[in-house]
């Protein structure tokens, strides 16, 4: 069991992979460390959101993920 970090949209290209498994628990500092400096820089931007267990966090800095959780990094969207 571990925390799954998912890279959505262009963050996948920056991360160089679609997902990564890390040991829980995982907080904001741990996440930024786990994803490397380039993705961490993106994460700092307001327009990049974070979801944990399928819910978007109102305050991404309050992340508290446990083993088994999925954490998704959500860059700015473009649909339609």
């Amino acid at each position: 069991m571990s925390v799954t970090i998912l890279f959505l949209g262009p963050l996948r290209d920056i991360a160089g992979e679609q997902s990564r498994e890390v040991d829980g628990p995982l907080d904001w500092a741990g996440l930024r460390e786990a994803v490397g400096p380039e993705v961490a820089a993106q994460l700092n931007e307001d327009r990049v959101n974070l979801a944990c267990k399928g819910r978007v966090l109102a305050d991404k800095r309050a992340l508290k993920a446990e083993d088994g959780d999925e954490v998704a990094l959500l860059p700015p969207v473009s649909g339609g």
Partner: protein
Amino acid sequence: MARLALSSPLDVRLLDKGLSVGEALAAFNTAHDEAGGIVSFLGKVRPGDDVRALELSHYEPLTLPGMKELAKAARVRFDLEGALVWHRVGVMSPGETIVLVATAAHHRRSAFDAADYVMDHLKSAAWFWKRERRADGWHWIEPRAQDRIDLARWN
């Protein structure tokens, strides 16, 4: 024409392959024969601009629930009798349908505004990421400034 079963009043779908626009709109029309006005919007991959393919990715736990919330919000806000909100994911070629929205209302103004509202939100407030393949490879597309201005009209 084959009968297509729609859920009523709201039919919201993520589709991983092409769709028959005529069939969908005929079924929507039949499902809402009490409505005075029905508006539809169909968005397609535009040929030209050197675009060879377009890919839309999504995030399963958020995208469809978000579209359902959007359809519900539109229904309440514009007093709709029904709405259809279908969005493609995956790789599409020029000419293929990306999105189909239809709204049914008592009065035409509500139906027009609701379709407009749903499209503005799908463009820049739904969980989709779009990239285009051109001669030199794939390029991620960010919402245009105009899309954000369009969205702000509804606040």
